[in-house]
Structure formats: structure tokens, C-alpha cells
């Protein structure tokens, strides 16, 4: 990755920053393109999948990759390529759902805790500490077990274990802005705390929060797929990358590698692109946090 140079003389706008990062970083742009493709698959996947992802065929079981079935077929003779394509929607929805949920709840909780301070801050802080006291994936398993084994609860569990990161981030960002002059001015102008928070402070922390969210998406996909890999949430025959890897894993001893490799690679590609795009977005919006 090229280091950002401070030599640009034109006033820095988001677009010029964007162009700068894009020029210096072909990999991020490539990742963005692949990601766009995955999102398109998520939107129109069922319409363009070459075969019916649920149609089984007794004569086509466990066929290696071939021209009509580029990713091969699984134990029930279903086309793996079609299943991988159709699964994109569910995997993306689970990840986006979880991230949006923890983003919204986390920003609200963190902002209020950071602005109000005192007992509210203490309580929110303690609750978040308690969530962080669990190994996160284990807590997610416990939540799914308690709330019931469904896709919706996988989303909730993934959102809960991510919540502390958003709350802490929002709290810290609001806390440093609480006493800045523009907030003082708004207060002098007669704005109430809710209005100051929503109109004056939160819009200022949103860009950094969005970066946090985009860096979080890849992890949310991994988490949701991990839960469905161990048999939680998604039920067969629904196509989903994690459960497809787990179904294919039974054929590892007979050498049918395509059954688990292609869904796994789809998962890796999606996570990889999300991570790279998240890094790129951070470089544009919040360059100081580069590592």
C-alpha cells in the first residue's frame, strides 16, 4: 500500500481524497468491484442462477466441476454454482442486518452515555464490560441457544456481541465534543439536550462510525457463517455459505473437494473484499487511524 502524501495543493474534499486513495491503491478498487458484483448477486441472484438451487437429481450426485456445472454438484445432485450465487443474498442480509442493528443501537446508547455521563454512563459501561467478559463467539452461541435456533436470532446474537465496540466508540467521540464551542453555542441558543445530540453532535461522529461499521461487516459475515457451520440458524436445504461448507465437509474423506471448497471460497472472497474496502474507506475518512 502506498503511503498517503500531503502534497496535494487543492483543498481536500472527499472526492479528491477518494480519487487519491483509488489511484494509489488498485487493490481496494478491485475489491470494491468484486464487492459490487457480490451485492448484485445478492440482489438478482435467483434470477441469474443457471440452475434451480433446490432441485435435486439422483443421476447427478457428487459430480466434479464440468461445463454445465462449473462448481460441480452436491450429494443431492444440486448445482453448487447456483447455490453459491443464491446464498449471497442470505449471507449479506445476515451481516448487514447485524451491523445495522448494532450500529443503530450502539450509536444511540454510546451517544447518550457520552453526553449525559453520570449514572447512565456507568450503567451502559458496566453492561458493555459484561458482554466483553465473554469470549464473543461463545456468547453468540449462548444467545442463539436461549432465544431459539433461527436466522433472526443469529442476526441478533451477532449484533449483541458487536455492540460494545460501537457503544465505546460513539461514547468516546461524543465525550470529546460535548464541551466544544459549537456545542456550547447551540446550548446558548436554547437547544435542548436531545436536539443538540441529534442535530449537532451525532452527524459529526457518523463518518467515523460508518468506517467502524464497514470494517465490521467482514467479521459479521464470518460470525454468522460460523454459527450456521455448527448447525445453528439456517436450516437445510436453504443455500448459505457456512452450512454448505458444513454439508460438503462430510465428503472430504471421499475426495469430493468441490462440495466445500467453492462455498468456502465465496465466503473468503466476500470477507476479504469487505475488509479491503473498509480499510480503503478508513483511509479516506479517517486517515489518522491507519495501522
Amino acid at each position, binding site marked *: 500500500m502506498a503511503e498517503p502524501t500531503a502534497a496535494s495543493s487543492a483543498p481536500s474534499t472527499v472526492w479528491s481524497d477518494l480519487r487519491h486513495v483509488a489511484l494509489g491503491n488498485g487493490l481496494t478498487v478491485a475489491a470494491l468491484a468484486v464487492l459490487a458484483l457480490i451485492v448484485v448477486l445478492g440482489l438478482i441472484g435467483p434470477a441469474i442462477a443457471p440452475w434451480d438451487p433446490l432441485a435435486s437429481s439422483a443421476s447427478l450426485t457428487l459430480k466434479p466441476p464440468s461445463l454445465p456445472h462449473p462448481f460441480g454438484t452436491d450429494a443431492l445432485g444440486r448445482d453448487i454454482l447456483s447455490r453459491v450465487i443464491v446464498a449471497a443474498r442470505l449471507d449479506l442480509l445476515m451481516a448487514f442486518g447485524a451491523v445495522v442493528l448494532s450500529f443503530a443501537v450502539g450509536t444511540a446508547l454510546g451517544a447518550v452515555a457520552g453526553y449525559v455521563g453520570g449514572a447512565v454512563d456507568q450503567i451502559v459501561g458496566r453492561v458493555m464490560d459484561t458482554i466483553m467478559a*465473554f469470549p464473543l*463467539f461463545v456468547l453468540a452461541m*449462548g444467545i442463539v441457544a436461549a432465544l431459539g435456533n433461527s436466522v433472526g436470532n443469529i442476526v441478533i446474537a451477532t449484533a449483541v456481541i458487536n455492540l460494545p465496540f460501537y457503544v465505546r466508540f460513539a461514547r468516546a467521540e461524543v465525550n470529546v465534543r460535548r464541551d466544544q464551542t459549537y456545542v456550547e453555542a447551540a446550548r446558548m441558543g436554547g437547544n435542548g439536550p436531545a436536539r443538540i445530540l441529534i442535530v449537532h453532535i451525532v452527524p459529526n461522529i457518523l463518518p467515523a462510525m460508518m468506517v467502524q461499521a464497514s470494517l465490521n461487516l*467482514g467479521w459479521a459475515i464470518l460470525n454468522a457463517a460460523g454459527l450456521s457451520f455448527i*448447525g445453528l440458524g439456517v436450516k437445510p436445504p436453504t443455500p448459505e455459505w457456512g452450512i454448505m*461448507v458444513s454439508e460438503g465437509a462430510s465428503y*472430504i474423506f471421499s475426495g469430493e*473437494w468441490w462440495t466445500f471448497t467453492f462455498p468456502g471460497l465465496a465466503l473468503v472472497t466476500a470477507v476479504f473484499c469487505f*475488509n479491503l474496502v473498509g480499510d480503503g474507506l478508513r483511509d479516506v475518512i479517517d486517515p489518522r487511524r491507519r*495501522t
Partner: protein
Amino acid sequence: MKTAVTVAKRIASAVPSLVGVVVVTFLLARALPGDPAAYYAGSSATPESIASIRAHLGLDRPLVWQFVDYVWKLAHGDLGISVSSGKPVLEDLAVRLPASIELTGMALLFALLIGLPLGVLAATKPGRLVDHLCRLVVTVGAAFPTFFVALMLVFVCYYKLGIAPEPLGRLSEIYYTMPPPVTGLLSIDTLLAGDIDAFRGAIAQLVLPSISLGLFALAPIARMTRAAMLTALSSDFCRTARAMGLSSGRIVFGYALRNALLPIVNILGMVFSFLLGANVLVEQVFAWPGVGAYAVNAVIASDYAAVQGFVLMMAILYVLLNLAVDLVATAIDPRVAYDG
């Protein structure tokens, strides 16, 4: 004296976490969908039998009393009875815990043995091949699901190359005799029994699962080592050491690494969270008879007492590991004692 106070403070600071963990596991069990009494009573239950089970389980009492009861039982090591195995949950977990500890320990060892040197080399030669290798490992480690890496390793090393043993459990009982359990860790028990063949067998079974699990922990360790070493190497004291003509080995290991150790030790807390969670996935792939595989079966079978016991045990283990990380940080860096 100062240090003793700091250590005492750290130990005390783990108490609220433990209390929180117990409260949350209690509440998780109360969030069960449906009526637990009806669940335990089975499908042929009458309203009377459900009511008697509810009274027996204490579910008709106020929540606070149920919590007191839960803590009381917990204090006596009673985690309830597992519905699927019919045995006390604590007993089930205790039998399986050593397998998980052995796997996690090996994975951590692997991650440290590779991650630390990789991060140090990357920081001393920025922009060179080893730096790119480090970046590659970090990116791959963050993007590859543990279970997928595990499956690929099994496919390549066992099925294709035949260099790894069959990925089924800790020791093949067809070829080897199980050593008498002393520590529960097969790599140690086999040595204690003087059975070198079985020791080799146990280690061979451990290699692939440890690598799959360790790769996941490797990424944060390598990234943090690289970043901390870069900071330390560009600091004033390293510049002075260099100006004084000290050898580069002395500067890197004697000065920079010692100062970089603190952030590295601190990130181990996060690494343990990864390891204890990903353990579940790796155990599933390798049919490893640990607590993770037990918990997965319990979740699928709606064996609530077992799931609750597992979550509680892992959380307590994690709180204690975090405490250990804090104490190690205090031991290696005197500045921490003054900050705390």
C-alpha cells in the same frame, strides 16, 4: 509494596466481571423460548405434572429467589443435569476440558512461535519481502474462516498427501493405548506413562487442529508485534542506542522488543477471545472430544443446562485469562503499576 497493591487491585477488578457473567448466564437461561417446565415434562405431560416440575425446578418463585438458588447451586459446583448424557454438566465438562485446553494451548504456542518472529522481522525490514509476507498472513488470517482453513488442511495433508493422521479425535485407540489419565493432557500423560509411540501419535493428531486454530490467532499477534516494534524502533531511546554504536541485535531484542512486549501481551486478551470461540469450530471439524463439540451438540439438542454450563465455564476461563494477561503486563512493565 506498590506492586502488591496493584496486583490486589487487578484481582479485585475481575470480581465485577465474574458477577456480570453469572448474572448474564442466569438471564440467558430465563430467556428460553417457551416454558422450560413444559419442556422438561416432555410431550405426554399433563398440566399437573408441568406444575409439579415447575415447583420442583423452583420456577414458580420470584426471579430474585431463583437467582439466589442458582448462585447457591453454582457455589456447590452444581450446574444441573445434562438432558442428553444424563450426567451432571460439571462432570461432563470436566472430562472434556483437558482436550480443549491442550488444543488451545498448542494453538497459542504455534501462533506465538510464528507471529512474534514474523512481526519483529517485518518491523526491522519494512517494505521488504518479510514485511509483505507478514501483511499477507495478517490479511489471510483475518479473512479465512477457521473451519474452512481446517477443512482445506485436512483435505490437503490427510487426503491428498497422507502426511497427517485421520482427523478423528485425540489419539487413535486402534494403534495406541490410552495412557492413564493424570493431567488429562495426552501429550503429557503419554510421556508420564513412558509410551513414546503414543506420544508421537497424540502430537500428530494435534498438529492440524492447532495450526487451523493458531492461524486465526497469528494475525492479531503478528500485526501488533509489527506495529509495536515499529513504534519502539523509531523512538528516541533506540536512536540513542544506535548512535552509541550498539549492535542491531542488541537494539532489536534488548531494547525495542522489551518495550514492545506490553502492547503484545495486552492484545493476548483479544486473542484468547478468538481462540476460545474458534475452538468450537475446529473441534467440530476434527471430531475433537472437547467442550466445544459438547456445547454444539447441546445447543442442537436444546440441552439448556449443558449450554449454560459451557457458556459460564468459558466466560470464567476468559475472565481469569484476562486477569493473567493483566498480571503479566504488570510484571513485565513497571509503568503499568503506576498507571493502575
